């Protein structure tokens, strides 16, 4: 399961970055245990370094993680009937776990025992990675400039995996147009949510058009 190991270096990168801005080691580990969000934790560390207020942190985290709303939406069916496992499955629904659960070839959607195993292993790698990163980060000899690229690399890999699974251009064209438009038109801190919200609207409209087309085709 190669995707799973992605969390080890990413967790390490987070640990290194956290030590870099002066977050204590126990706080970095606690974050990986109770927040458990890749991009979210990188953002949290950046906000901590900038002495941001709690309100600001809450809003920024909600915005950045609002994409998780749609992950849950697409797993409503798969997670129904998961029983006692459901709360943890929902808690552990990160970008990578989502991509793993949805791109797995087997019937992982209905196999809740396997789903929870994958989710828990993912978090284990994430926490172990953080621990390793904290240890590396406390050795000042290591120059960590550029480590933040690990996040970009992760997103590129996830995009390619999504494309290989779906084999359609449509969502990527929608994403390209909305992201570039948001980049040009919106201030930096609203770009991400603006692009995701617009892409959702376009997919919604496209769904409506699809339906009316199908109804016309069925009419005598």
């Amino acid at each position, binding site marked *: 399961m190669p995707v799973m190991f992605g969390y080890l270096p990413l967790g390490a990168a987070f640990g290194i970055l956290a030590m870099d*801005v002066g977050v204590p080691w126990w706080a970095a580990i606690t974050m990986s245990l109770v*927040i458990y969000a890749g991009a979210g934790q990188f953002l949290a560390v950046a906000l901590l370094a900038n002495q941001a207020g709690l309100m600001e942190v809450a809003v920024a985290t909600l915005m950045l993680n609002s994409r998780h709303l749609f992950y849950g939406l697409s797993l409503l069916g798969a997670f129904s009937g998961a029983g006692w496992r459901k709360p943890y499955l*929902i*808690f552990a629904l990160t970008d990578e776990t989502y991509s793993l659960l949805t791109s797995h070839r087997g019937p992982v959607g209905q196999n809740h025992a396997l789903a929870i195993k994958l989710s828990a292993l993912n978090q284990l790698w994430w926490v172990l990675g953080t621990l390793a990163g904290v240890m590396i980060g406390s050795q000042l000899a290591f120059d960590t400039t550029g480590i933040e690229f690990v996040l970009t690399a992760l997103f590129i890999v996830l995009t390619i995996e*999504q494309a290989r699974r779906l084999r359609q251009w449509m969502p990527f064209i929608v994403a390209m147009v909305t992201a570039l438009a948001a980049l040009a038109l919106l201030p930096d801190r609203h770009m991400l949510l603006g692009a995701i919200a617009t892409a959702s609207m376009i997919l919604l409209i496209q769904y409506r058009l699809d339906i009316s087309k199908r109804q016309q085709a069925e009419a005598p």
Partner: protein
Amino acid sequence: MTEHPLLLLGFIAVCALATFATRVLPFIAFSRQAEHPLVLHLGRYLPPAVMLILVIYAMRDCSPLAQGAVNLDANGLPMLLAALIVAILQLWRHNALLSILAGTVSYMAMIQLF
């Protein structure tokens, strides 16, 4: 950073709650509409779109050209090359760890050594 431990824990709690809120909300709000075709449509097409948006977001500062010349700063050619290394390796070997590690290490090497 000289943050008080209790303040730090409060900060972490806020992040944890905000993150969990975004994950649990659909299960509370839409638990009865799991099979609705619109939910299935969004579930199919939105995640790939969001991934590409995240890539563009992460690379928003990338500008390979600056003032008509090749930009050799961290956000210039190194970022573009490292991104290409990740993409090509992933398409070729399908090994996420390899792609991420090779891309990040080459990015760090390029901006630290040149």
